[in-house]
C-alpha cells in the first residue's frame, strides 16, 4: 500500500523505518534517498544492502538503523541477496508457511555506484534477467566514497578522484560515465527511472510506482557526496538542484524498455559549467588548458537531452 504524502509536513511526520541515528556524513544525500523509499509505503520490507557507505554507516553492531528486515552479504551481491529472499518468499507463500500471508512484502536492494556499475554489474544483470520482483536503487555518488574516493565507471569525465587525480598532465578521469539507466532498460525491466532527492515528490512518485510494479525495477538516484564532490555539507540540495537544472542528471523514466517519459523540465536550464563550478572535484577544469573538457561535457549533456526528448516524442 502506498502512503499518501502530499507535503513536507506529512512526509516529515511519517513513521521512520530508517532511523535518524546513523554514521553517514552530515550532508550526505543517501539518507534522504533511503528514508523516502522506506517511508513511502506501509508494506513489509526486506532490504538487501551492498557493502558501501550506507551499509557501514547503518549497521555497526550492536546498533542498527533499520526497523525493517535487512541483509548485507558483500559488495557485489545485493541484487542476488534480494533474489534469494524473494524466491524464499514465493516458496513459503506457495507452501502456506508465511506468518502474515495477507500483508504485501516488497524486496528492495540498495547499492552505491561501485556496487552497481562495477563489481555488482553481473549480479544485477542476472537478477533483472531472471525477473525477480524487486526494486534496485543505486545510490549514485559517482565515486567509491567509502574507500576514499576512487573512480568508478559512474565517475563523470573530468572528475579528479583518488585514482584519477588531476595533475600536471591529467585533467582527471578520461572516460564518460556508463549509462546504467539505458542498460537496465535494455534488459526489458518493466520500470527504470532516474531520481534526485531535491525533487522529492518526483522521487516518491517513482518509488511508489516502482514498488507497485510486478518484476524487476531499477532506480538510479543522484546522491550528491559532500566529501568526494567537495562542497559544503549544507549545500547538498543546492548542488542537487544544479545537477537536475543543468540536465547533467535529467529526471525521466522508461517503462517496459521503451516508453520514455521526461518527468522534470527545468524552467531555466543552467550551464553545466555552473554545476561543475560549485564542486571541488572539477576545480582543475577551470584552468585554461582544461576548459575544453567543460565544453565537451556541455556538448554531451546537450546531446543526451536532445536524445531523451526525441525518444519521448517518438515513444521509443
Amino acid at each position, binding site marked *: 500500500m502506498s502512503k499518501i504524502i502530499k507535503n513536507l509536513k506529512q512526509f516529515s511526520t511519517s513513521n521512520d523505518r530508517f532511523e535518524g541515528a546513523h554514521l553517514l556524513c552530515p550532508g550526505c544525500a543517501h539518507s534522504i534517498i533511503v528514508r523516502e523509499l522506506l517511508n513511502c509505503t506501509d508494506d*513489509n520490507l*526486506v532490504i*538487501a544492502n551492498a557493502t558501501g557507505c550506507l*551499509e*557501514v554507516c547503518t*549497521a*555497526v*553492531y*550492536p546498533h*542498527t538503523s*533499520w*526497523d*525493517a*528486515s*535487512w*541483509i*548485507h*552479504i*558483500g559488495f*557485489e*551481491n545485493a541484487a*542476488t*541477496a*534480494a*533474489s*534469494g*529472499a524473494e*524466491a*524464499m*518468499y*514465493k*516458496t*513459503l507463500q*506457495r*507452501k502456506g*508457511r*508465511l*506468518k*502474515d500471508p495477507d*500483508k504485501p*512484502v516488497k524486496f528492495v536492494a540498495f547499492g552505491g555506484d561501485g556496487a552497481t556499475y562495477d563489481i555488482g554489474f*553481473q*549480479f544485477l*544483470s*542476472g537478477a533483472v*534477467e*531472471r525477473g525477480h520482483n524487486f526494486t534496485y536503487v543505486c545510490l549514485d555518488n559517482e565515486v567509491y566514497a567509502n574507500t576514499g574516493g576512487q573512480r568508478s565507471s559512474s565517475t563523470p569525465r573530468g572528475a579528479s578522484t583518488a585514482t584519477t587525480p588531476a595533475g600536471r598532465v591529467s585533467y582527471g578521469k578520461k572516460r564518460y560515465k556508463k549509462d546504467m539507466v539505458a542498460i537496465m532498460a535494455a534488459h526489458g525491466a518493466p520500470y527504470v527511472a532516474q531520481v534526485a532527492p531535491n525533487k522529492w515528490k518526483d522521487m516518491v512518485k517513482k518509488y511508489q510506482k516502482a514498488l507497485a510494479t510486478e518484476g524487476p525495477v531499477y532506480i538510479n538516484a543522484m546522491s550528491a557526496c559532500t566529501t568526494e564532490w567537495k562542497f559544503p555539507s549544507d549545500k547538498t540540495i543546492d548542488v542537487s538542484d544544479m545537477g537536475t537544472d543543468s540536465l547533467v542528471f535529467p529526471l525521466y523514466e522508461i517503462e517496459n524498455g521503451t516508453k520514455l517519459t521526461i518527468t522534470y523540465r527545468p524552467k531555466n536550464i543552467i550551464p553545466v559549467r555552473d554545476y561543475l563550478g560549485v564542486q571541488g572535484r572539477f576545480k582543475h577544469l577551470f584552468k585554461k588548458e582544461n576548459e575544453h573538457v567543460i565544453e565537451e561535457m556541455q556538448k554531451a549533456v546537450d546531446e543526451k537531452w536532445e536524445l531523451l526528448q526525441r525518444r519521448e516524442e517518438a515513444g521509443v
Partner: protein
Amino acid sequence: MAEKLKLQEVEVWDGNMAFAQAMRQAQIDVVAAYPITPSTPTVHGYAKFLSDGYIDGEFVLVESEHAAMSGCVGAAAAGGRVATATSSQGFALMIEVLYQASGMRLPIVLGLVNRALASPLNVNGDHSDMYLGRDAGWIMIDAFNAQEAYDLMLMGFKIGEDLSVRLPVIINQDGFITSHTAQNVKPLSDDTAYNFIGDYKEVNPMLDFAKPITYGAQTEEDWHFEFKARQHKALMDSSKVISDVFEEFKSLTNREYKRVESYLMDDAEVAIVALGSTVESAVQAAKDLRKNRGIKAGVVATRVIRPFPIKEVAEALKNVKAIATLDRSAPGGTMGMLFNEISAALYQSESRPVISNYIYGLGGRDMTQADIKEVYADIVKNAKAGKLVTPLQQFSGLRGPKLSFFN
C-alpha cells in the same frame, strides 16, 4: 504439494543422482545453482524433478557460483531450507560467500563434487576444492561412494539445521569416480527420508516482520573476535550432534557412520589415512595384503573433516607403528593437509607412530592397487625400522623420475 516418487528397494544411481534424490526428498525451499562439471548432473536431476512436479520449492538459475551462494544466503536468511551443488572453479568463486554463510549461521547444505583446480584446467576428480574450503567455517563431511553421498546429504540437513548447530554443511564426493559411476543405492521412501530430516525450524527469519532483523552487520575490533570465537565453538560442539545424527540414521537404516571410520584396524600395524573413493581402494588393497602377504594393514578415514575429529583419529591410530597419509591435493609448499592434521592429533597422544605423506591422484590420475600396495610396502619398512626410512613426502603415481621432499 509436490508429488511423491515411489523408489525401488535398490536403485542404480550415480553419486550425482544420489545427491539430487536426497535434495528432492528434503523438500528444499530454495536451490540457487549454476552449472559446472562434474556436479552438473545433480542440478539436472533436480531440474527434472521440478519439471515433473516432484519439487515445489524455488529453483533460482543464477549467473555464477558466486551468485549461487549469494542467493542461498539471501534465501536462508529469509527463513527456509536451502541447498546448492558445485565443484572446483565454481566452489573457488563462491569462497567469499561461504565465509558469510557460516558467519551468519545459516544452515545451507552444499553438495561438493570434488574436482581439481586450474591451472592447468582439469575437469577430473581430486580434493583441491575440498581443501580450499576447509577454513570457511562449514561442517565438512566426506562420502566415499554413491550410497554414502545419498545418506550424508540427507543427514547434512538434519545436522546443520539442528538448533544447537545452525551452521552450513558441505557433503563431498569424488568427481566422476563417485559422481558418474552407477552403483547400487538403497534409498529411503520419500516419507521416511523427510520425516528423518524433519520440518525446517526457522531462527530469526527476515520474513518475520513482527521482529525485523539485521543480517550481516559490521563488527570491528570490539566484537568481531567474540563472534568468530562463538562460531568456532558452535563448529567444535557440532561433533556431538553429528554423532547423534549418525546414530539415529543407523537405527533407521542399519547403515553405520562414524566421524572417523576404521577398516581392518583391530590388529593393524600399518595404516593408510585417506579420503574419498580412495578409502575403498585402500581397504581392497589392505585385504589383499593381509590375505596374500600377511601384512597387518588397515585404513582410517576422517569421515568428518570439519570439525576435525582430533581425539577420535588419534584413538583410531594409537596402536599402529607406521602411517601413510594420502593427500589428493597439491600441498602448495608444505606437507599435505591430512599429514599435518593427523600428525597434530598424534603428537598429543602417548603413541608416536612414524608418519609419512603421499601426494597422489591430482587431476584424476588413478590410484591403482599397485600404487597403494607400494605405499603399504614403504610404511612396512618404516614400521620395521621404528623410524622414517622413506621420504617424508613423496608423489605417488607420477610419471617420470620419482619426486620426494624432506628426504
